């Protein structure tokens, strides 16, 4: 078994009376690509900041490569690279100068820094624009420059917070491809996102965050199999009867929205079509259409957080 690189136990952080992170337990082994999934405000970024030692936890422990990032920050920072959400660079400097600055902060010699900068700019396909001011870079280019910085520092662990946030589909794919390369090069990657498809394509494991807690941890396949059991999406249209009140009585059914075409969207744990059809007819209604399909991974993911939200409420 690969050694554990990131280990968080009972991590808790509150801001006033609001508990941002509530007893998070997380382990990441060497070479893994783990996705932290969850809606905005679920506690992903706060957890990441505590892992990096940029925010002090109220309680719980963190070990990165066996070290406490709050007590031994320099050793941890030497091995861990961080790409924040919407990474910021000095706009008045070129991409190359920005990297040169962080290389100097990291203690690289001038020659070594120049060699590595040329190498990584090539790798992230910014070599042609490396001498242009960062102010002229697109958001995708900035994110790639952020990845170049991690590559330049040759970190063992990369922690990426919402790296594809605000990117167009092509830039997202480019960035995910680069992150995938990290893992092939042996880097351990922890990536947070609120988009399932972002992490689905590159992560070996996912942790679902909701309201400061991790509700599910497992491989993408485990998540998919859970989804396979998690239900059906049903669309029904009928005249002369109120579908919403009729379906609400059925066990395991959540009534969703009504489409402009007059079809009701329902989420059900089992295929309720026969029972639904029987009730419509028994109630004197006229069934116009009735469709069902198993929930896709994305739909199940959304539903997971909706249900978790209802439970909390």
């Amino acid at each position, binding site marked *: 078994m690969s050694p554990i690189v990131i280990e968080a136990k009972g991590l808790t952080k509150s801001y006033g009376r609001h508990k941002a992170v509530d007893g998070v337990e997380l382990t990441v082994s060497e070479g893994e690509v783990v996705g932290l999934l969850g809606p905005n405000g679920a506690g992903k*970024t706060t957890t990441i*900041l505590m892992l*990096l030692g*940029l*925010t002090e936890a109220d309680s719980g422990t963190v070990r990165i490569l066996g070290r406490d990032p709050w*007590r*031994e*920050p*320099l*050793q941890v*920072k*030497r091995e*861990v*690279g*961080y790409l*924040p959400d*919407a*990474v*910021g*660079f*000095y*706009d*008045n400097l070129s991409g190359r100068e920005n990297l040169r*600055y*962080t290389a*100097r*902060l*990291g*203690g690289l010699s001038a020659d070594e820094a120049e060699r590595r900068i040329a190498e990584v700019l090539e790798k992230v396909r910014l070599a042609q624009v490396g001498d242009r001011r960062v102010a002229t870079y697109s958001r995708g280019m900035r994110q790639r420059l*952020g990845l170049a*910085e991690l590559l330049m520092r040759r970190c063992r662990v990369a922690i990426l917070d919402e790296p594809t946030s605000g990117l167009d589909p092509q830039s997202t794919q480019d960035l995910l491809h680069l992150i995938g390369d990290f893992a092939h090069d042996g880097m351990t990657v922890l990536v947070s996102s609120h988009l399932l498809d972002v992490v689905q394509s590159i992560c070996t494991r996912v942790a679902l965050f909701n309201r400061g807690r991790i509700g599910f941890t497992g491989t993408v396949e485990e998540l998919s199999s859970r989804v396979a059991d998690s239900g059906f999406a049903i669309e029904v249209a009928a005249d002369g009867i109120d579908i919403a009140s009729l379906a609400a009585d059925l066990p395991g059914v959540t009534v969703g929205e009504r489409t402009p075409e007059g079809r009701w969207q329902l989420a059900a744990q089992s295929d309720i079509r026969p029972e639904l059809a029987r009730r419509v007819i028994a109630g004197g209604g006229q069934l116009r259409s009735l469709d069902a399909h198993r929930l896709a991974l994305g739909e199940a993911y959304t539903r997971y957080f909706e249900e978790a939200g209802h439970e909390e409420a």
Partner: protein
Amino acid sequence: MRKREGSPFKGIGTIALKEAADHITSARMHLVMLLLLLTAGAAIYGAVNEIRATTAESNYLFLALLAVAHAPLPSFASMLGFLLPLLAIALGFDAVNGEFNRRTMSRILAQPIYRDAVLFGKFLGGLIVIGIALLTLWLLMTGIGILFLGLPPSGDDIARGLAYLVATLFYAGIWLALAIAFSTVVRAPATSALAALAVWLVLSVFWSMLAPLIASIVAPIDPDNPMTVLNQFYALQDISRISPATLYGEVSSMLLDPASRSVGPIFQSQLEGALVGAPLSTGQSIVLVWPEIASMVAAMLILFTIAYVVFQRQEVRA
């Protein structure tokens, strides 16, 4: 308690040099320096005319260039005392919150350096730029002085001039530390700039009006007791010294005028045996204003410490 690994000063040079480079090429620095140069030019023009007319026989002509005023123009030292805080505030008001707003702070703090280095580096970078600006102005004044007066500066002129420059740097350091403290506490750069400017206005302009009022309340004069007049004067002096501008004014007057013997009242008994008008040595003048210099250094350190403590405890999310 376990000792921290590595030096808190690692990376400080890199940050300070980058800050200095950013400042030197920034539009705000160019604007304030232009203002300083224009007023310095006017001040030296006035000083040269005044010196030619009145004090051509002084042994300290180059110090007079800095201290002599030709109405309605202020002296170079007075002008510097008023405008230098503006330069320091311009360099420091967005030192920390600017990094948060550019979203560069978390990336910089994720590098293998301590937070200490970021704040020290920013402060040092600002001081380096102010130091370069002051040295340039002083050399410019001296060069113009040589041209117009036709004399080289004496050793005492240079020694006192350098001591004055160091004291001026401490004075600027107070305002730089104040601006950095506001930039640490307040997230919006415009607000931190306004807050620093408000403090500057109160302490540099209004304090001289407020101090007598406060002194008259704290130490009222009793018409039957002449000592109360002296007590009120001392109270006024102490209250006035809360303003760095007062401290700097006292230091300037003592260092740039070798004949000055005190910043406070002098009694007849103290003058017995003294050669009135005889200059003090540079060392003696420095000893006389040592409390003022120490106060300026202390104020700078206190303000920087406030910024340091706040910054160390700050949540870094951007």
